[in-house]
């Protein structure tokens, strides 16, 4: 590691190396490579927001390296119900996050690495970044048959997607981030990215499904650390900076003032679900009650994640019509959320006549309704 000769640069660089609390905003001109100490998807997305909002990228560019514990990340304008199996994710405790960049849905776990390239808006250039990644991988393992498509994917053997891309442009800064599959759990990935919800109609950005493969399958000696290191080295070379990775703690307010508010915002229901573009649900399901099978038809309009209008078509007189309309009225304005619906329906039941049969019918209907969410 050779420190640059100019005194000014020397001082600034040493500032970072010795006093991380001084803030890495004063990086040496040219570039800065940072890596997150956290595996929390919300904290890491918050770091992206923070750099995008607060760093002056006129004279330097930043590469941010991060990995997350199991999470599904949807694009800014996507519909989570359309993109993934929310029920399964709740069971497996897999988090759902909405990022601020566009693009499609991805599954992250510790076998996947994320790279974010920060530049000024003028220097925004996705192809260059991806070529850098390919160059780094080929330097590491020359036998890898990888190339960048015009859709900004990286394909292995011209078939399997190993990396997807998304970008966010602000007024003066921009970032381009991409994933890279090293050793992710492909089975969980395919289960979780398959939506079980039927009858959804939406203008949200749809994801384009693709066959994926891990680089580990091509060469079992590869690890995430090796890939991160290779990419950092290539970036350092191209930007003529030291191959030094600054570690940052995404919860440290002294280095990143205001970061915790950003990660909190990313975790709110209003952001994750409420930002879903308007969509409608038009579906039917069967209910088995005692010895009969009933057909139920449901139509709902959902805006900002809340049920705007709701219509439930039940066989006549199966439930007293007054009760049915009470349920529909209560659902209007309510969050399109199973927890909310369950709490709502069980509270409403307290107002119903105390009839065991009525109660079990009501519970059956409400359980089926929550299955749609």
């Amino acid at each position, binding site marked *: 590691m050779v420190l640059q000769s100019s005194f000014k640069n020397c001082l600034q660089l040493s500032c970072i190396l010795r006093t991380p609390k001084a803030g890495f905003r*004063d990086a040496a001109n040219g570039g800065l490579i940072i890596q997150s100490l956290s595996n929390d998807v919300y904290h890491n997305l918050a770091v992206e927001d923070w750099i995008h909002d607060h760093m002056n990228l006129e004279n330097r560019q930043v590469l941010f390296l991060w990995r997350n514990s199991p999470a599904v990340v949807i694009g800014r304008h996507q519909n989570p119900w359309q993109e993934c199996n929310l029920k399964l994710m709740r069971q497996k405790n897999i988090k759902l996050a909405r990022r601020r960049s566009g693009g499609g849905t991805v599954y992250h776990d510790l076998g996947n690495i994320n790279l974010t390239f920060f530049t000024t808006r003028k220097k925004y250039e996705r192809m260059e970044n991806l070529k850098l990644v390919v160059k780094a991988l080929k330097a590491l393992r020359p036998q890898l048959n990888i190339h960048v498509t015009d859709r900004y994917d990286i394909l292995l053997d011209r078939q399997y997607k190993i990396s997807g891309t998304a970008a966010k442009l602000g007024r003066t800064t921009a970032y381009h981030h991409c994933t890279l599959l090293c050793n992710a759990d492909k089975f969980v990935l395919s289960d979780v990215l398959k939506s079980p919800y039927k009858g959804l109609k939406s203008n949200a950005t749809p994801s384009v499904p693709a066959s994926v493969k891990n680089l580990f399958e091509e060469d079992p000696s590869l690890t995430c650390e090796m890939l991160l290191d290779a990419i950092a080295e290539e970036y350092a070379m191209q930007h003529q900076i030291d191959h030094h990775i600054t570690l940052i703690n995404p919860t440290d307010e002294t280095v990143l003032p205001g970061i915790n508010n950003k990660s909190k915002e990313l975790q709110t229901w209003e952001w994750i679900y409420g930002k879903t573009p308007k969509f409608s649900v038009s579906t039917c399901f069967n209910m088995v009650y005692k010895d009969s099978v009933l057909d139920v038809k449901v139509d709902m309009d959902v805006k900002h994640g809340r049920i705007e209008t709701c219509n439930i078509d039940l066989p006549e007189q199966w439930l007293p019509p007054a009760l049915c309309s009470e349920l529909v009225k209560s*659902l209007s304005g309510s969050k399109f959320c199973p927890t909310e619906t369950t*709490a709502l329906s*069980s509270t409403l039941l307290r107002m119903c006549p105390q009839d065991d049969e009525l109660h079990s019918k009501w519970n059956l209907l409400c359980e089926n309704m929550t299955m749609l969410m």
Partner: protein
Amino acid sequence: MAAVTALRSGCRTAGRLVCAHHVRSCSSIRFVKSKYVCVFDKSAFKFSRQQRLFRTSAVSCGQIVQFKLSDIGEGITEVTVKEWYIKEGDSVSQFDSICEVQSDKASVTITSRYDGIIRKLHYNLDEIAYVGKPLVDIEIDASKGVAPEEDVVETPAMSHEEHTHQEIKGHKTLATPAVRRLAMENNIKLSEVVGTGKDNRILKEDILNYLAKQTGAILPPSPKAEIIPPLPKSETVPTAPKDKARKIPVPVSRPVVFSGKDKTEPITGFHKAMVKTMSAALKIPHFGYCDEIDLTQLVQLREEMKPLAQIRGIKLSFMPFFIKAASLGLLQYPILNASLDESCQNVTYKASHNIGVAMDTEQGLIVPNVKNVQVCSIFEIASELNRLQALGSAGQLGTNDLTGGTFTLSNIGTIGGTYAKPVILPPEVAIGALGKIQILPRFNGKGEVFKAQIMNVSWSADHRIIDGATMARFSNLWKSYLENPASMLLDLK
């Protein structure tokens, strides 16, 4: 003093002298002089700024400018409009976010170049917008003029939030998000900047002036993270108003104005259902009965039982004991586990003791119940409680867990409080609220003072079918089980 007054009156006429509130102590003439020079232009600027502000508060009918969609880069010519942050008639400031557009996996935040009022949106949601073509029409304030293309100050894209308040050491500092970012980028504490806007609001000019005062230019943030002013901190800007009040005979005390806005939200979903339930509960004639329980023996018993339960993988609290004792009491006084029909004609004595436990979750107050406590052991109740608590915090309680309750206990004491006035949850007829366990001095049988673990209980019951005596006897029985836990053994099935 006289010198200062003279200066001030001079200020008005000449318009170029130092504004009085920047004069420091008169004793150090040299001091005043240096400040005089330093602040010279700033105050003039401020003065004209105030004049400008005054003018802009009048109704503006300025020119309509077509704000065109700027180049996205990478040769992109068209994008899809995905979200509007403003609507026609909204006022925007420079750098406020206008909309979010998407092009080929890139999401772009378009920010306003002007201050003004939005007069027209050229596209609807999901329509294709073209680079170089008008995106919105903005009516610009005539007096302000059109902002330059390249901005000296880099402030990033912002959300469309209203002016937010920031609590800094107890003082509310008003500043728009754009101004706030500028301050943060330059390591300036807003509490140290004097706001010249309405209600002491801090404007962009104030930040620029503060910076100009310190360094003469806008520099990137220094590692020291503090811009050292030429004067020691205690004498900088925050003391200015105090100085002003002391030196200037003319009263300039501004009344403290709180400009927060009321926020109205509709009541929806679960909360709407709660409104209905509680309104119905109001129709029940409640009466209350309270008592204190000496839990000294129970506390000791639980300490002994806790590790045994832990080995079996269950966390043991006091609730399983309270619940089981209640069930034993309900066996003797089944009217408390009953339900009155709507017409108040019939009472249904429920066979199962499904005892509800009030839980505070993200949704609000949820009451899952433990089914058939009459046939459960304390350990079984404890493990069921563990399951319900885990589901409750994950927001995954099912309808079966949340319905069918016949009697409720609310352990509000875990949060705090002693006596309460709980509200009965229909269709039940009774409820108990448990306060916190306190260590208090009490007299024992021998007249000696000892340390007792005291908890208060507050019962509410439906007076239409339950009378005070029944409630009191039930409570006494429940109390005796808990004060002497061994007595439960006699009645356990």
